[in-house]
């Protein structure tokens, strides 16, 4: 058996998600990504179950595995109880582990995602934190958010929130000891290691592309090659 | 200037110039008919010439003064137009019939004019009825009793002789209408209306001439044919014979015939002349209907020889796709039908090979296809950079350049790649003869362009050709060997590879054997060789494969061989023929091959090989009795490689 395939099989999401696929296409039929990206989850599952090392490596370095939105709609429909969504997660995981993710434009985005989301979790205990959700970076958040951003404390106060306040409530400040526990969990379960790995790979790629870290981050945040889209 | 000689204008003593004016009303129908035809022809001729590109026209004029061509013209004019030697060779009876009518009539006209020139020269002048007088000579003069010289009797004899000659021809023609097979034709063409009018009047012309001349034979002279008949009339009708009606009838028939001529197959009698001149001048039709093509299609005599030739006609329903009808519809400008017929043809070129006047119907069909298909969208931009030059390890030291570049480049072609056994065999043979070769398209090249040509996508074909051409010239080889006749045909005709000899592997292997580089062992296997269309009729390669094969086994003949061989049915020529119809053709082709119970059918074309190896083979095996039940199909190279 192939090396990459074995690595994949270590991932519980693959153990759960992969039974023999019959290529019926139910997953692709209702996949939100398949309609707007050059994406066909069926083929991904088929490649993985083919155990073809070369193909799997291509996959890990490809844009393809980064198109999924992880809505898991595919899981509902598969007649063979496969979970393409979980298989994609396993592939992404391995692609990051092996540093392959920087080979693709979409994969590179992990650098900024990891940086921001993990920072939010470790600094505040939340995945999303309003003070870090800026209107400039999110114009679609609308005029109303432009206004909220300016008056966050007032708005939260008005709406019975507890922004950065003590005790329970919406957006309360989570006590430091809890954040410390999160940090320890990160360290223990490989999240911290993952963050460093991703950052290192990002920096390498940035250098390769002749960019500073900031330029690199800006680039991967906004870039989107039309080749991702279907004709 | 002084003329070379002056005709003695006074009448010779033998004859009495009965009607000095040289005119009688009954000639009117004839005059009208023939004048109409002459005017029509002249106009037509000018229109036709106008359509021919100036360059070609110049070429035509020049050709008249090139002795070689001039001689060929004369020979062809007599052999093709008058004696129909081509038909003689193939079907003697038919040949006799055609030549009897053509040559016989020609002589009657010539002699008629001679007589006038000798006896009443002044009537050769247009003013004195020169147009019709010689035709109706016997009507206008009476013999001068007692003065008739041997010269006169001689002419009387000749005239009767050729009249009889023609009459036998006409007789056969009439008979042929009802029992064509006796004259060796399974199918005959269905005549159009104009054809019928002309045909029936043609049938009547000579019997009526006999009638007319026999009525006046006692007065204006006659010989072994007309005189006895004349006596018969006297015995029946008594002394004074009223002869005007028959001369009228005779004139009317002639008139009718000439009037109908331009719209009937008999147009070929005159167009053929022009066509021969154009053909021998080496002019090619640029358009399926205009210019040269027009001469070509009007040169077709609708004799229908192509009907039996066409391999598609194993099924009666396909008769309508034969060249003769294709040309008929070209004349009628019936677009829909023209396209249907043009697309159906296998392009096996047999009709062309057998045509008495050498009408190249396949070429016309190709031109027709081009009018539709050449404009269809395509994009070969990928050819420019993508045609792989032969791999280094295939070439024997490329580094040192042309000098020790391989002597031979082998180009397998698309179809051969579907028959790996051919490739294996060829390479085995090459190795056995220690040929220093390079395999141009070992891992897939591009198409040779012939299929595109056949489909009428001419400009597309040119692009593939130039791509291949570049690749071949770059390789620096001196001989190009092909295992697919389809490729061979186009490489030979269209590629003009300066300094590179293009050979089909049958030819090359023959050479290897002759040079003694290839030793072949013999066995007593009964072989029959199938002539692939593109190789045989296409490129005239008939002998080479047979020579080699006869060294390795006993070569038995097929029922029809050489340019008569029957297409395997797999041809890329046909665009619309479906699998079922093809199978029928394959069967008939196989039946033709196993006529003398061979053990193995040998072909030299991957397409034939695949087609013959298909299901049709079993059906034939079963049909043709015990001894043939296990007939195998092999490729030429395969057979040879087993004998090195």
């Amino acid at each position, binding site marked *: 058996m192939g090396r990459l395939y074995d690595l994949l099989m270590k991932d519980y999401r693959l153990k759960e998600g992969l039974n023999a696929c019959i290529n019926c296409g139910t997953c692709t039929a209702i996949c939100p990504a398949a309609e707007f990206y050059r994406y066909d989850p069926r083929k991904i599952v088929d490649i993985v179950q083919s155990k073809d090392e070369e193909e799997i490596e291509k996959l890990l370095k490809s844009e393809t595995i980064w198109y999924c939105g992880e809505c898991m709609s595919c899981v509902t429909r598969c007649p063979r109880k496969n979970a393409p969504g979980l298989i994609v997660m396993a592939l992404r995981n391995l692609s990051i582990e092996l540093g392959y993710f920087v080979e693709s434009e979409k994969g590179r985005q992990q650098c900024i995602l990891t940086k921001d989301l993990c920072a939010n979790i470790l600094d505040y205990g939340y995945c999303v934190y309003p003070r870090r959700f800026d209107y400039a970076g999110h114009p679609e958040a609308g005029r109303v958010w432009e206004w909220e951003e300016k008056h966050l404390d007032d708005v939260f106060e008005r709406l019975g929130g507890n922004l950065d306040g003590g005790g329970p409530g919406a957006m309360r400040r989570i006590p430091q000891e809890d954040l410390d526990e999160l940090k320890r969990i990160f360290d223990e379960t490989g999240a911290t290691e993952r963050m460093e790995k991703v950052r290192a790979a990002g920096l390498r790629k940035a250098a390769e592309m002749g960019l500073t870290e900031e330029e690199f981050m800006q680039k991967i945040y906004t870039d989107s090659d039309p080749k991702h889209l279907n004709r | 200037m002084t003329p070379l000689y002056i005709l003695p204008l006074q009448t010779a003593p033998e004859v009495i110039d009965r009607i000095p004016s040289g005119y009688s009303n009954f000639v009117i129908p004839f005059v009208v008919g023939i004048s109409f035809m002459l005017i029509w022809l002249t106009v037509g001729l000018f229109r036709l010439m106008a359509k021919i590109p100036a360059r070609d026209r110049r070429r035509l004029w020049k050709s008249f003064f090139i002795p070689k061509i001039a001689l060929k013209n004369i020979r062809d004019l007599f052999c093709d137009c008058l004696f129909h030697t081509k038909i003689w060779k193939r079907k003697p009876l038919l040949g006799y019939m055609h030549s009897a009518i053509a040559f016989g009539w020609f002589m009657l006209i010539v002699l008629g004019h001679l007589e006038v020139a000798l006896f009443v020269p002044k009537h050769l002048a247009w003013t004195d009825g020169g147009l019709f007088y010689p035709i109706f000579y016997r009507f206008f003069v009476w013999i001068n009793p007692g003065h008739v010289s041997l010269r006169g009797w001689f002419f009387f004899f000749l005239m009767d002789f050729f009249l009889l000659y023609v009459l036998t021809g006409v007789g056969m023609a009439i008979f042929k209408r009802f029992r064509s097979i006796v004259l060796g034709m399974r199918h005959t063409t269905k005549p159009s209306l104009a054809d019928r009018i002309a045909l029936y009047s043609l049938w009547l012309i000579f019997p009526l001439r006999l009638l007319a001349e026999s009525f006046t034979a006692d007065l204006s002279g006659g010989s072994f044919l007309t005189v006895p008949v004349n006596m018969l009339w006297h015995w029946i009708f008594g002394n004074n014979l009223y002869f005007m009606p028959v001369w009228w009838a005779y004139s009317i028939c002639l008139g009718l015939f000439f009037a109908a001529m331009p719209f009937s197959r008999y147009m070929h009698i005159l167009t053929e002349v022009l066509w021969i001149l154009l053909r021998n001048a080496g002019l090619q039709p640029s358009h399926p209907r205009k210019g040269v093509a027009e001469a070509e299609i009007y040169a077709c005599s609708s004799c229908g020889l192509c009907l039996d030739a066409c391999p598609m006609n194993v099924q009666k329903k396909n008769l309508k796709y034969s060249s003769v009808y294709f040309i008929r519809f070209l004349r009628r400008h019936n677009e829909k039908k023209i396209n249907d017929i043009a697309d159906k043809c296998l392009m096996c070129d047999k009709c062309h090979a057998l045509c008495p006047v050498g009408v190249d119907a396949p070429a016309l069909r190709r031109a027709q296809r081009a009018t539709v298909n050449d404009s*269809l*969208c*395509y994009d070969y931009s990928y050819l420019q950079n993508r045609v792989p030059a032969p791999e280094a390890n295939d070439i024997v030291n490329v580094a040192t350049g042309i000098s020790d570049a391989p002597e031979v480049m082998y180009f397998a072609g*698309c179809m051969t790649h579907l028959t790996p056994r051919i490739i294996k065999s060829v390479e085995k043979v090459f190795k056995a003869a220690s040929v220093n070769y390079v395999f141009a398209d070992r891992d897939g090249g591009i198409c040779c362009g012939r299929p595109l040509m056949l489909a009428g996508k001419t400009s597309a074909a040119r692009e593939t050709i130039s791509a291949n051409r570049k690749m071949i010239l770059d390789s620096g080889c001196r001989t190009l060997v092909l295992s697919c006749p389809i490729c061979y045909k186009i490489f030979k005709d269209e590629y003009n590879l300066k300094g590179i000899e293009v050979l089909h592997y049958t030819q090359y292997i023959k050479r290897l054997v002759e040079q003694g580089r290839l030793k072949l062992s013999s066995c007593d296997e009964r072989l029959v060789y199938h002539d692939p269309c593109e190789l045989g009729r296409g490129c005239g390669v008939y002998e080479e494969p047979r020579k080699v094969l006869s060294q390795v086994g006993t070569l038995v003949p097929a029922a029809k061989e050489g340019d008569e061989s029957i297409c395997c049915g797999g041809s890329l020529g046909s665009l619309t023929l479906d699998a079922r119809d093809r199978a029928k053709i394959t069967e008939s082709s196989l039946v033709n091959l196993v006529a003398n119970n061979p053990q193995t059918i040998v072909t030299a074309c991957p*397409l034939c090989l695949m087609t013959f190896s298909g299901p049709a083979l079993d059906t034939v095996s079963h049909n043709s009795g015990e001894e043939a039940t296990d007939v195998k199909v092999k490729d030429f190279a395969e057979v040879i490689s087993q004998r090195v």
Partner: protein
Amino acid sequence: MVDFGFGLVPSSRINLDLFDREKFEALAALEPDVRKCMACGSCAAVCTAGKFVRTSVRDAIEELFNAHPDKALDLLKSCQLCGKCTMVCPRGINTRHLILSIAKIYGTK
């Protein structure tokens, strides 16, 4: 209009409701074999041009059915009519004529 730095993305979903039946019938009248394809892919497997650019009769037929004649033409524009596909087609489809016919019906604007 506000520019958000991104926008709606074209859909690639095949919409069979857009299938031009009349035109296809015209094609089927010209070359009825088009209906006989069972998408085995033999044609694409042997294709001469396919070695250099994506060329496939099978995919082209599929695209026609899927209301994408433009893509069908695209898949065939590199064809050299060499006839290998005709030889290998298990359904005996006259692929060469089919390819010409598709160009005739859909290619000529």
